[in-house]
């Protein structure tokens, strides 16, 4: 018997629990050249801001031990071009479309989200209140309970479909921030965004990123992400989308056991763009072997001491 891979996030059914992470798959066009996007549970776009952004000067990525740093700086086409040039493509894809929304002020989140509310191709939005790479806004919202609640509540008024709040790990208590996002009206959480980090060249004494610091991602952060997913799971009843270093089927299973209903693959796409497709297939084999009929039965089942 083929295991049931379907999961539901805030009433939206996904064909399987694997999504691409924001900032790691553009607007989907490049991956669509490699495989049908219907193989993904959902596609999460690059962060969209009100105005187009070129991002930070290069170098804006740096390799680290089992991971990488990035300070792309929310490079994106802006909401006008996104709607005009990218939405028509996304509307044709047979997958759930989640648009990541970023801003430097609450008004910007609201305006972008309101524009997306008029686009039926957008199934959900993910609020990036946790980007470590912009000087203004971004992580500031997600590091403060009051601002988190305010920004989610403001967007809630203009966006009628599900809102996922993307939470920052760069906080004292991620569960407290999750509470605030839920209070503001979030329907789900994605946990975690990248960890603030840096790296320095010992010859030039220069940071390896022109932004001087960036976000650490990849397998190096997986243990941190798992603990944070579990902390949010134990606090809140809202569904969690787990993110952080997922590269194999066993990584995905760990996230589900810790409380994630779905997972996003980010940095691993840079090593192997087929990663989410492979994970879905290999998870099926695992579930069959374990005689588990549905992937969702794994959620939160970690047997803690």
């Amino acid at each position, binding site marked *: 018997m083929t295991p049931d891979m379907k999961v539901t996030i805030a009433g939206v059914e996904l064909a399987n629990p694997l999504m691409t992470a924001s900032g790691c798959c553009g607007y989907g066009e490049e991956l669509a050249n490699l495989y049908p996007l219907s193989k993904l549970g959902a596609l999460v776009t690059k962060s969209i801001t009100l105005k187009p952004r070129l991002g930070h000067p290069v170098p804006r990525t740096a*390799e680290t031990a089992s991971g990488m740093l990035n300070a792309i700086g929310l490079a994106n086409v802006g909401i006008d071009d996104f709607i005009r040039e990218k939405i028509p493509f996304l509307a044709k894809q047979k997958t759930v479309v989640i648009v990541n929304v970023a801003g430097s002020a609450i008004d910007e989140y609201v305006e972008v989200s309101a524009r997306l509310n008029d686009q039926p191709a957008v199934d959900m939005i993910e609020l990036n209140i946790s980007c470590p790479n912009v000087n203004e806004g971004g992580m500031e919202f997600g590091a403060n309970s009051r601002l988190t609640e305010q920004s989610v509540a403001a967007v809630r008024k203009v966006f009628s479909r599900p809102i996922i709040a993307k939470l920052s790990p760069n906080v004292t208590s991620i569960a407290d921030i999750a509470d605030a996002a839920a209070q503001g009206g979030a329907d789900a959480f994605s946990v975690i965004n990248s960890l603030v980090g840096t790296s320095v060249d010992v010859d030039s004494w220069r940071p390896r990123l022109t932004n001087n610091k960036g976000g650490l991602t990849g397998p190096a952060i997986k243990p941190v992400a798992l603990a944070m997913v579990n902390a949010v799971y134990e606090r809140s009843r809202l569904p969690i989308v787990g993110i952080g270093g997922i590269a194999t089927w066993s990584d995905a299973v760990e996230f589900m056991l810790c409380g994630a209903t779905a997972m996003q693959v980010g940095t691993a796409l840079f090593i192997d763009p087929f990663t989410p497709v492979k994970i879905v297939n290999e998870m099926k084999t695992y579930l069959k072997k374990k005689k588990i009929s549905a992937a969702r039965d794994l959620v939160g089942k970690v047997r803690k001491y």
Partner: protein
Amino acid sequence: MIKPACEDAYLIQSKDLRNSYYSLTFGSFSKAGQCRPGHFVHVQLPCSDVFLRRPMSVASVSRGKKEIEIILKVLGRGTRMMSDLKKGDRINILGPLGVPFRLPRRSQTVIMVAGGVGFPPLLYLATEMVAKGHDPVLIEFFYGGRSAGDIVEKPRIKKLGLKFHPVTEDGSLGSLGLVTQAVEEYITSRKGTVKPVMYGCGPEGMLKATDELGRKYGVGGQLSLEAPMPCGIGICLGCVVNLRQGGHARVCCDGPVFDIGEVIL
């Protein structure tokens, strides 16, 4: 756009070309036949020490045999590990990637500007042109390095029958100076008699000087750029360059080959 393969290939030959240069030939790569001059492959090493793939331009292919050759210079951890690979070792190849060179018209005089480890894609381009019937004497192959040791695969380049112009900064081989100085002398001495097209690949300074020469003397052509690139397929936005017309281009998928004058170098 070619759909790249993402698959394991095996080292079938490793040749030490001296001075930290190595030629590696990988077999069992199903898309070898689709690798054009200017394409690159993104190579994943079978060890956890090197996390990201490494972009390597294709130096030659053996279509029927599904083999591709890359030539590298050991510069860091990734290239060091690649040079240590043994016959039969497995690596994973994603490719072919990027936009390849546009081949010139057969009657055109072609100036190749190669600097250091930038020569492999131009070697492939020249080989392909000659194979397609381009008269080799129309190809002026300028190849610069710090000293004689940096100019590798000389017999192979000369065997194509093209005009070979080695240039070294210390004068230990060919003319003394920078490769772009030799190219400028060539262009000015032939001005008005030939209308050449130029192809360049090499270090940043060389590319910048080549681009300036192209614009100064009205010589069109293409340059192949290098950049650290995590993904190689356009999804991470880590390898952008500034375009003269404004905005960004991704080296990995909008390039690595760009027209002279297109990019702010």
